[in-house]
C-alpha cells in the first residue's frame, strides 16, 4: 500500500555517488549574548539516499541546531550545505521556503500542529503553500492520513487527538509534498514506550520504502532503529 508514496523522482543530477546531504565545514555561532556560543564546529557529513540516520548526543551537543539547519529552519554561520547537489546555504528566504515545502519534511517533538485546524487541514497546509489544486489536495491528504492510520480521525482537532495520533498527523503533514528527506527531532520525546514503538515502526516502514530518514534522539532504543548513528559532542562529530 505504502509503495505508492515512494519517491519516484530520480536522484539529483542522476549520480548515485552524490550524497543527498553533504555538509562541508559547517559551523553555527550564536552571537546574541555577551559571549558568542559556537553550537556547531566544522561539521563534515554525508548522508546518502535511503539512509536511516540517528543523530545522538547529550543536551547542548548541538544536535537540534544541526537538525534545524538540515531542515532549513536555520542557516549555518560558516560552511556549505548541499542538498541533492544544490548549495542550500546560499539560498535566499524564498528559496529556503520552497526547500522546506518540497524537499524536506520536518517532525517536531511538540508535534507543532495548528490547534484550530483539523487533522485534514493540518496535513493540507504544505500542499496549499505548494499551490496544489483543491481536488488533488483532497486526494493526497486522504492517502496520507490513511498511510499513518488516521483516516477515521481526519476531522478531529489536535486537542481531540492523543500524543501518538498528533505525531502521526505531523508525519502525514511532513510527507504531504513527498519530500526526499524526513527529519524527526525527538519524535517520541513526549510519548510513552508503546506509542514510541508505533511511531518508530512507522518511520522504519517509511525508510524501507526508500525515504531518507534522519532522527535526532538521546534515547538508545530509538537510535537502535537507525542503520547509522552519528554522535555529537560539544558541537563536533565524535
Amino acid at each position, binding site marked *: 500500500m505504502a509503495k505508492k508514496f515512494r519517491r519516484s523522482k530520480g536522484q539529483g543530477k542522476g549520480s548515485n555517488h552524490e550524497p543527498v546531504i553533504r555538509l562541508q565545514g559547517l559551523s553555527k555561532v550564536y552571537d546574541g549574548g555577551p559571549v558568542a556560543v559556537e553550537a556547531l564546529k566544522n561539521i563534515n557529513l554525508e548522508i546518502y539516499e535511503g539512509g536511516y540516520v540517528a543523530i545522538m548526543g547529550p543536551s547542548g551537543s548541538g544536535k537540534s541546531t544541526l537538525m534545524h539547519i538540515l531542515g532549513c529552519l536555520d542557516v549555518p554561520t560558516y560552511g556549505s550545505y548541499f542538498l541533492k547537489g544544490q548549495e542550500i546555504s546560499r539560498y535566499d528566504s524564498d528559496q529556503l521556503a520552497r526547500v*522546506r515545502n518540497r524537499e524536506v519534511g520536518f517532525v517536531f517533538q511538540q508535534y507543532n500542529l495548528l490547534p484550530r485546524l483539523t487533522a485534514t487541514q493540518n496535513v493540507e497546509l504544505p500542499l496549499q503553500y505548494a499551490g496544489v489544486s483543491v481536488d488533488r489536495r483532497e486526494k493526497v491528504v486522504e492517502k496520507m492520513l490513511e498511510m499513518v492510520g488516521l483516516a477515521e480521525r481526519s476531522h478531529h482537532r489536535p486537542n481531540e487527538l492523543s500524543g501518538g495520533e498528533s505525531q502521526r498527523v505531523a508525519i502525514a503533514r511532513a510527507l504531504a509534498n513527498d519530500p526526499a528527506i524526513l527529519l524527526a527531532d525527538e519524535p517520541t520525546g513526549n510519548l510513552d514506550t508503546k506509542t514510541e514503538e508505533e511511531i518508530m515502526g512507522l518511520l522504519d516502514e517509511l525508510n524501507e520504502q526508500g525515504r531518507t530518514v534522519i532522527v535526532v534522539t538521546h534515547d538508545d532504543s530509538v537510535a537502535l532503529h537507525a542503520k547509522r548513528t552519528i554522535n555529537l559532542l560539544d558541537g563536533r562529530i565524535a
Partner: protein
Amino acid sequence: MNFLSLLGLSVVTLRHHKSRSFLTALGIIIGVMTVITILSLLEGLNRKIKEEFSTLGSSTIYIQKMEWQMGPGRHRLDFEELRKRPNFTVEDAEALAKLPSIEAAVPSIGKGAGTIKRLGNEAQNCELKGTAEGGDLTGNWVVEQGRFITREDRLHRRLVCVIGSYIAENLFGAENPVDQTLDVDGHRYLIVGVLEEKGAMFGNIQDNVVIIPVSTYLKYNPLPRGWRAIWGGLSIEALPKPGVPLEKAMADVEEQLRLLRGLRYDQDNDFGLNTQQMIMTAMQGITSTLWIVMVGIAAISLIVGGIGIMNIMLVSVAERTREIGIRKAVGARDRDIMIQFLMEAVVLALLGGLIGIIVGIGIARLVSVLVEFLDAASPWWTVVLGFGFSAAVGIFFGIYPAQKASKLNPIDAIRYE
C-alpha cells in the same frame, strides 16, 4: 495559498475573536459612519439649496445701495459713505429697461404690512410690496387669475393689488378674490390678480404677499431716511433677456448706472449689483467648508481606527508567533505570511467600513425624517468612498504588523512560548 483560502482564513481568525475584532473595527466604523452621514446630509442640503433658489428668479439682478456681504473675506463697511449714496428712482428703472440686454427692469420696495383685512377676517405677518409692470417677470411670479400690475396702474397710482396664494386661501377660501376688495393699512384696494403658489424657501412662506403699484406704495409710505435707506429704500430688479449671459447684463447695467450718475472713471460704484447666484455661491462655500471640517474629523477617526487595527494586529502577530513559525516550517514564504496578515487587517477594516456605511446611511435617513427641510441623499460614490477609505486604512496600517510577521525567523518563531 490562493486568494479565497486566505480570505476564508481571515474570516475564521476574526470570528474566533469576535468582540476583539468588533472593538478594533469600531474606529473605522465611526470614521466611515461620519463620512457617509455628513456627505449624505451635505449632498441633500446642496440639492435643497438649488431647489429652493429655483423658486426665485435665479437670474434676476437686484440693484441696491450696497452689495450683499457674505461668506469669508468681508471687508469693513463705511456706513457714512453708504448713507450718502443716492436713492434709486423710477426713472433709473425706466432707463435700465431700455438696455438691449435687459428684458425688464422694475422699481421695487417692500415692508411688513400692518394688518390686512377683508370683511371680518384678518391676516397677519404679510408683506407689502410696491413694484411696477414687469415685476412678475423679475420676481418670478406666475399670475394664476386676473392680471399683474400694469403701467396704467402705476401712472395713475391706482389702489389695486395682486395677492399671493396664501392670502387668497386664508381670506377668500374657495371664492374668487379677483374684483373683490382688501384693506391694507387702512386703504381699500381692488384685487386685480392672484399669484400661483411658490412654496416656502428655508421655511419662509413667500406666498403671503400683497403687491401694489410702486407709485401707490410711495404715496402712503414715505421713503426711509438716513441709514435705514441703505436697505429700506427703492431698489431695482432687472431681468436679463433670454440667452443673455448674466455677466453681460450686469456689465451693461453697471455701465448705464455709472452713466446716469455721472461717475468718473476713477470713482467707485455708489451702488451694488446682487444676484441669487451670489447667495448660492456663498451657501455652497459654507457647505464646502463644513464638508472639509467634517471630512477632517472623519479622517482623524479613520487614522485612530487604523492605529487600533495596527495595534491589534501587532498583538495578533505576537500571539501567533508559533503559528507563523509552523507555517514557515511547512513552506510558507515571507510573502505568504505577509499577505495572510495584511488580508486580515483589510478584511477587518472593510467589515468596519461596511457597518459604518450601513449605520451612516441609516443615520442620514433618520435625520431626513426628523428634520423637515433636509432630505439626505447618499449617492453611490459615498459608498465607494467609504469602502475605499477603509481598504486604504487596512492596507496602510496593516503593512507594518504583516511585515513584522513575515520577517520572523522560523525556528525562533516555533520555539516562542
